[in-house]
């Protein structure tokens, strides 16, 4: 996880277009200024960042399903449940699947587990639009390469 850059997914471990599912991993850093405030003497990964982690995994799944032509943006978070604490240094397994693909929007179901134990889950709604500019598209290309997004799914202009 690169918390400072809001890049919360370290690697995609499985992307199944047919089943419309994704699995990813992320290592919570041992040290970060976030933990100095959340909480002093009892560091915990903030729930909002866990939600964002689930959103980013879902986003990569949507980008893949949309053949890297559109960018999803988080619109709604439903039924988000923080079921257990996540501590510095832990490795997260993130799974997401498609609930619904609408016109210009999509819904996913996502969860995070640590060593097989469910820590949080949510249902997420995204709006998606064509990439608004080449800069964002280029940035997403670079992140995709870093986290092991299947290169054959990246369509180039």
């Amino acid at each position: 996880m690169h918390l400072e850059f809001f890049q919360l997914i370290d690697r995609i471990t499985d992307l199944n277009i047919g089943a419309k599912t994704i699995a990813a991993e992320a290592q919570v850093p041992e040290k970060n200024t976030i933990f100095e405030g959340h909480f002093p003497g009892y560091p915990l990964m903030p729930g909002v960042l866990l939600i964002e982690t689930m959103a980013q995994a879902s986003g990569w799944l949507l980008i893949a399903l949309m053949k890297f032509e559109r960018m999803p943006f988080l619109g709604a978070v439903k039924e988000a449940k923080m079921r257990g604490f996540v501590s510095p240094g832990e490795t997260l397994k993130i799974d997401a699947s498609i609930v619904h693909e609408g016109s210009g929007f999509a819904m996913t179901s996502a969860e995070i587990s640590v060593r097989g134990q469910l820590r949080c889950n949510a249902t997420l709604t995204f709006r998606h639009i064509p990439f608004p500019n080449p800069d964002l598209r280029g940035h997403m290309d670079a992140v995709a390469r870093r986290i092991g997004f299947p290169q054959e799914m990246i369509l180039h202009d």
Partner: protein
Amino acid sequence: MSSTFDQIATIIAETCDIPRDRITPESHAIDDLGIDSLDFLDIAFAIDKEFGIKLPLEKWTQEVNDGKATTEEYFVMKNLAAHIDELVAAKGA
């Protein structure tokens, strides 16, 4: 069997917590019922599932933005119901 209007009125009432008797065939989903675009995604989701269609929200929004259609054409309840009937018929054709 309830009409398409009744079905979507029930969906909207349940999804947006709007009293069912406030929703009439003449109601404008945005102007009269106060449903915003994000809430409408939940309605679209429920309609898609209920009728087995994909409500073409992007196309409709584009037409409104381009001045080719008015919001009344798609978001007044009786018109929305008519469009859903067309989509269902097209699916079965």
